[in-house]
């Protein structure tokens, strides 16, 4: 007890250097814990992008490529799936539901997704949540559009706003379907998934706006008005991909194999969970590197503390000799310095935690809107506590180095005060 008091008083006496050490450790711990937290949350939100879907089917390409363009809206499909093949799978006796997806157009940098209203019945994310409407309803009329939360938020659209879809992808597309404007009828709740950045409309609507287009350009001389287009039969001939839900999970592998071996059209069926995991493993390397770097920063912080304590040791030889003369045992001198670094590390960890949580409170909205990762203000997980505990243990062990040196000094110096 007296040792703890002495340590605290002695640290307070040297509060400038002690504070700087504390800040160094605090920042390194903040970084370490922050990276770990962002990592966990990113992984969670990543794995939660899609749930409840048993298969994703698209044209034959790579597993990850299919996942990226169909779910994450990254990149493009190399080719499409014919409507006949879609119908074939849809009518399979083991299939409970299917949701077609058609991509390719955009609106001010956000992807436009053509689908059916089944999308709102079956698309699930996170812990099997269905999409919910913040405002409005599903698309019913041909020129209705439902916006993801971020689209509405960023572009300032409300129910009733008019939207023109651009042909192709990219913010500055020259060709726009301005002859067939859409009306916003619904805005979805925020999900933290790519759905937030998507405009949803019906497959028929996509057909309608392309009725007078061929191979990416408007057919010269033709001009079908919005009203005329609505009267034409708008049966899509092909789609980009589709989601499949099975009646029984057992049949999933069987169907997957059948689709992959289908002779008439090269198709690929993937299990979303497996593909998500595979994708994460690829992205995960960066995350591991980041974790390593932040761990090294913590080590640098502890080495900084070691330097400060070792430097102070020479000036404090007198202090040690005085303590020895009033009855401190040599091991108590060792303990005194170990306690000092333990105390500094502990306070540094505490400071780091408060810095991080303060930072989260401040940065939460920015992080969510800019990188789409929501960092909740939850207490550290058991694993994170273990990491923090490890930092304190390391800090304490580091203290053994000056502790041992002081021990040697005090054994050698005895009660002879050397200046």
């Amino acid at each position, binding site marked *: 007890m007296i040792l703890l008091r002495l340590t605290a*008083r002695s640290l307070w006496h040297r509060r400038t250097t002690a504070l700087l050490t504390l800040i160094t450790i605090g920042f390194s711990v903040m970084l370490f814990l922050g990276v770990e937290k962002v990592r966990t949350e990113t992984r969670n939100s990543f794995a939660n992008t899609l749930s409840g879907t048993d298969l994703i089917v698209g044209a034959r390409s790579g597993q990850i490529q299919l996942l990226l363009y169909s779910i994450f809206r990254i990149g493009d499909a190399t080719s499409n799936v014919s409507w006949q093949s879609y119908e074939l799978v849809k009518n399979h006796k083991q299939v409970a539901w299917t949701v077609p997806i058609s991509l390719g157009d955009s609106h001010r940098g956000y992807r436009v997704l053509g689908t059916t209203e089944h999308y709102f019945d079956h698309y699930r994310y996170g812990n099997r949540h269905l999409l919910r409407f913040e405002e409005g309803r599903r698309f019913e009329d041909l020129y209705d559009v439902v916006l993801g939360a971020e689209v509405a938020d960023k572009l300032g659209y409300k129910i009733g706003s008019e939207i023109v879809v651009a042909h192709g992808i990219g913010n500055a597309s020259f060709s726009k379907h301005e002859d067939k404007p859409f009306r916003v009828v619904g805005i979805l709740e925020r999900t933290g998934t790519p759905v937030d950045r998507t405009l949803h409309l019906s497959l028929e609507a996509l057909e309608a706006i392309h009725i007078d287009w061929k191979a990416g350009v408007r057919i010269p001389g033709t001009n079908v008005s919005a009203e005329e287009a609505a009267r034409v039969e708008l049966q899509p001939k092909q789609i980009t991909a589709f989601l499949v839900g099975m009646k029984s999970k057992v049949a999933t592998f069987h169907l997957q194999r059948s689709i992959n071996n289908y002779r008439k059209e090269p198709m690929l069926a993937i299990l979303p969970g497996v593909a998500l995991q595979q994708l994460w493993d690829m992205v995960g390397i960066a995350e591991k590197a980041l974790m390593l770097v932040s761990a090294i920063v913590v080590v640098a912080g502890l080495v900084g503390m070691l330097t400060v304590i070792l430097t102070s040791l020479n000036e404090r030889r007198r202090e040690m000799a*005085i*303590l020895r*003369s*009033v*009855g401190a045992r040599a091991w108590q001198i060792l303990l005194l310095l170990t306690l000092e670094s333990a105390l500094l590390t502990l306070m540094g960890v505490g400071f780091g935690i408060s810095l991080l949580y303060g930072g989260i409170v401040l940065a939460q909205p920015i992080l969510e809107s800019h990188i789409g990762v929501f960092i909740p203000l939850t207490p550290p997980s058991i694993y994170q506590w273990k990491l923090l505990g490890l930092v304190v243990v390391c800090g304490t062990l580091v203290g053994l180095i000056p502790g041992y040196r002081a021990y040697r000094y005090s054994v050698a110096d005895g*009660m002879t005060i050397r200046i």
Partner: protein
Amino acid sequence: MQAAIELEHLKFGWKPGKTLLDIDKLRVDRGERVFLQGASGSGKSTLLNLIGGVLEPDAGGVHLLDITLRALSKTQRDAFRANHIGFVFQMFNLLPYLSVLENVTLPCRFSHGRKDKAILRDGTVDESACRLLDHLELGHDELLRRPVTDLSMGQQQRVAVARALIGSPEIVIADEPTSALDVNNRDRFIELLLHECELQESTLMFVSHDPGLHDHFDRVIDLHHLNQNGSKQ
């Protein structure tokens, strides 16, 4: 009479074969106040570390209060020192981050024996410290609250005396405690030190190179004569 400090056939050298101290016999009785004179480099500090139990002699024995230090383990020697010996050093005796009062009561935090004795005598450890400080002319409240670094050198040395005497240790060792003081302060300091040791019946071993301080003491020991190794040179 019981011996407070007794050295027998003591031999010590920092390096093997080079003996620094070779003392055949030295006996200081309990309650005695002796002046140990020795020039710098004569092995004074080494002798004090031997008596303090921090160093172990190469041969011979150190007996304090009829206890043979050699028979004790390192930790036991540390505990013995904490319980029975008070030290005053040359200068800067105090821990700068503790108050005057905390500095004085420090030995009671490391030794139950001295804490108990202080409480037995004055009721509480703080009371005991205040009594000693008062006797040493440091009793003003205003002074007690000041950081120790604000005290004059003479005041600091008197605080160190109070610390050495709290809990009435049987032996007090003062190592050149007056070398940083001017003559007026020096004589007053020695008077106070001797008076307090007498009150507490503590044995005082006062070490200095300064022969001018002889007059204050019952007995003067010249380390030069005592040390047979030294006299041979």
